[in-house]
């Protein structure tokens, strides 16, 4: 099957004062339709730069990126590319254009010259998907952070993209807001088969991904399932990442004993493994 995003020998450096410094260095990977990807890595490892390369805000210095078979260097089809890959950024305040929720969601369809009756339907559908329909006529500045970010997502959904990139979209939100946004991501991936690329520093979010891409200084260190990533001690040390709190908790609590079992990713698994270990101790005692 043709991958949705195909990155080949990608190099990138900024053309300003940092010129010459390779921000991305020979990246090769592809992403299939319907995948849930997490990209993690230290500050300055080039994640945001990569996100902006996916939808042709930046263009590769060398190498190629194909989005749904279209080269991002193709200037004529640039809107086609941006329609396929939407990006939700970190600060909801800086990506909402209009004062009213419905007007903001309508921004992209307006740019794409969609007719008036159709825009109405698109706006309703997009707000429905993020569960913000009752705020359709509200002013954006009266909403909470999580609600604003969901409006921003609706603004992207209005383009009906095949893939949505979340660039630290939950990092400015409180736990409630973060859960709201995360739930929207999961729902979109499950129900619409939208490809989700979640760039994040929160390891608890990484757990939901099918595949994790670990980056460091513009290079990919490893791509694998969350479980394999978090059981790779060397990799974690090298990339400066910490496993999720539950994983760390169990490892610290039980040490060798836990490592011999399996890497746990959430609270339920942690409880299970703890029970197994306690069971084992009992048998050992008697």
């Amino acid at each position, binding site marked *: 099957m043709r991958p949705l995003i195909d990155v080949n020998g990608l190099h990138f450096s900024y053309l300003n004062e940092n010129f010459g410094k390779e921000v991305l260095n020979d990246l090769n990977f592809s992403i299939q339709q319907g995948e849930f990807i997490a990209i993690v890595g230290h500050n300055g490892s080039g994640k945001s730069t990569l996100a*902006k390369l996916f*939808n042709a*805000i930046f263009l590769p210095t060398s190498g190629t990126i194909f989005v749904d078979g279209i080269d991002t260097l193709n200037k004529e089809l640039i*809107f086609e590319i*941006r*329609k396929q890959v*939407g*990006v939700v*950024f970190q*600060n909801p*305040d*800086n*990506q*909402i*254009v*209009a*004062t*009213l929720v*419905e*007007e903001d969601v*309508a*921004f*992209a*369809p*307006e*740019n*794409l*010259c*969609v*007719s*008036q009756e159709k*825009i*109405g339907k698109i*706006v309703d559908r997009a707000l429905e998907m993020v569960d913000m329909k009752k705020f359709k006529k509200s*002013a*954006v*500045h009266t909403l909470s952070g999580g609600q604003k970010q969901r409006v921003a997502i609706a*603004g*992207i959904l209005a*383009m009906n993209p095949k893939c949505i990139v979340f660039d630290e979209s939950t990092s400015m939100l409180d736990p409630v807001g973060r859960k709201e946004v995360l739930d929207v991501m999961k729902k979109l991936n499950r129900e619409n088969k939208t490809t989700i690329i979640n760039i994040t520093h929160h390891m608890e979010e990484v757990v939901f991904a099918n595949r994790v891409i670990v980056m460091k200084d513009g290079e990919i260190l490893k791509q694998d399932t969350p479980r394999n990533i978090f059981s790779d001690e060397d990799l974690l040390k090298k990339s400066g990442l910490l496993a999720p709190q539950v994983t760390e908790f169990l490892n610290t609590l039980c040490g060798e004993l836990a490592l011999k079992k399996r890497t746990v990713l959430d609270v339920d698994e942690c409880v299970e493994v703890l029970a197994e270990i306690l069971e084992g101790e009992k048998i050992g005692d008697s």
Partner: protein
Amino acid sequence: MIRDITIGQYVCGNSVLHRLDPRTKILSTVSYIFALFLIDSLWCYVLNFSLILIFYLICGISLKMVLNNVKPILPILILTSIINLCVIRDGEAVFSFWIFSLTDRAIFFTLTIFFRIILLIFSSSLLTYTTLPVDLTRGIEKMIKPLAKIRFPVEEIAMMISIALRFIPTLILEAEKIICAQKSRGFNMETGGFIKRAKCMVPILLPLFVCAFKRADELAVAMESRCYRVGGQRTSYKTLSFKKLDIFFALGFLAVLTMVFMINAFFR
């Protein structure tokens, strides 16, 4: 608090004024302001003032809101009034004390200026209170559309205005945060003379500008990501249309303004 300043804010409602087409309201406001600067009889100012008060009553917006907008410029207004009173010497003296004398011309002139500024704020605030920013920009866009023929960037200007209005509440919140941050470092902006206070604005405005530029940068990327292109063709989510109400209002308003001008010409 600066949060109380409500310039450019919309107040939800369903009054006659809310339902008018933005173009009707913009034109009415502009002609009202023109009238303000053309009339020179005190009675007409009183008339204009009551007209605005009636409008505020109709749309049920409390005067407290607009008074908050007047507050920041009140010191300047009072200062200029005092200077006017002292400096203007022609006309007959009504009252004199030592070297000072108040002339009837001075009092008249001062009152005129005072009324003009206050009514200017009252009327322009009323426009934004009753009109959604999007409608306002759409109205302006429609009205300056003919200029597109001479390559005037109509859509871009409209987009700029709507974004500016959109960011007013955001920047006000940010200014408040910056003030708090500076205060917590022992920064004092409540005391001192005029010059000292003016200097105090620097540590507030500088970070505010830096933040605004950073925001603008991010917003530009976000807009491009959503397929915006400067000078590109766009459609509109909602369109404007004149209704019967607009015609009635425009005719009525025109009649009132004509009456004011007539009074101004004949009763002085």
